[in-house]
């Protein structure tokens, strides 16, 4: 296990994306507003896509596959955000609040 050098290696990038993922995880677990939770999810997805590209750039010989993976992550994150926002808007119309600690019953 060689020590972490000063010149950025793939380990620097992976540690950075792990830290961003952990911060997104904290936001996901802590936020009361549903849109705040979604912002934590976006942080995590972004960190994962960055990690794909960083790994491929430093260790493989065909980084095009990781670039395509990151492209798909971005597209799927966009689709998921559309649906989540539609649900939150409809939920706000019905319950007048999107505080997740107050929406705890499933009756109509």
């Amino acid at each position, binding site marked *: 296990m060689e020590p972490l050098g000063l010149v950025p290696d793939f380990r620097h990038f992976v540690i950075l994306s792990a*830290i961003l993922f952990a911060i997104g995880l904290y936001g996901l677990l802590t936020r009361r*507003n549903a849109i705040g939770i979604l912002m934590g999810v976006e*942080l995590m997805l972004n960190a994962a896509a960055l990690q794909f590209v960083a790994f491929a750039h430093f260790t493989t010989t065909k980084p095009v596959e990781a670039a395509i993976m990151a492209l798909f992550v971005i597209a799927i994150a966009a689709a998921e*955000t559309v649906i989540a926002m539609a649900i939150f808007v409809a939920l706000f119309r019905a319950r007048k609040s999107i505080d997740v600690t107050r929406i705890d019953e499933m009756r109509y």
Partner: protein
Amino acid sequence: MKVETAVYSILFYGFAAASILMALLTVVSRRLLRAAVWLMFVLLFTAGFYVMLGVPFLAGVQVLVYIGGIVILIAFAIMLTSSNELLEDRPTLKRKLLGALGALIFLGITIPVILASELPNSNQSGVSAEEIGKSLLNYGATGFVLPFEVVSLLLLAAVIGGIVVARKK
């Protein structure tokens, strides 16, 4: 960009510190619209990382789709649900501690594994937009045309689903 130059290291550490700071501001800020702006900055710094990793096409897509689409959508939803008027209530201390514990356990598991790994070095070539395009439309064994079509269907379903869920009765 060559990795051995000092500019690369300075840019990497600067962008890394700035994006970690912006991410912390995103998850802690009580005004949701400001949290969306800090999220936009994190995504912008990630686009800078994509340029440093030799994929400028992905940096452009990140800015166009992630910032120009998703963050704008988040801002719309914040204003449509009136979440920008009041300050969000603080989470309870127990919730904060449990959240921090979860994040720290994740870091404690992954960072030692990362530090102990040794992977072969590559020639660090970049990816051009032409390569990405050809690979996405490649019908061969290493092509990605099937996921490409499936993602197109997914986006169509998301658009239709969004309209149906959010319309007024």
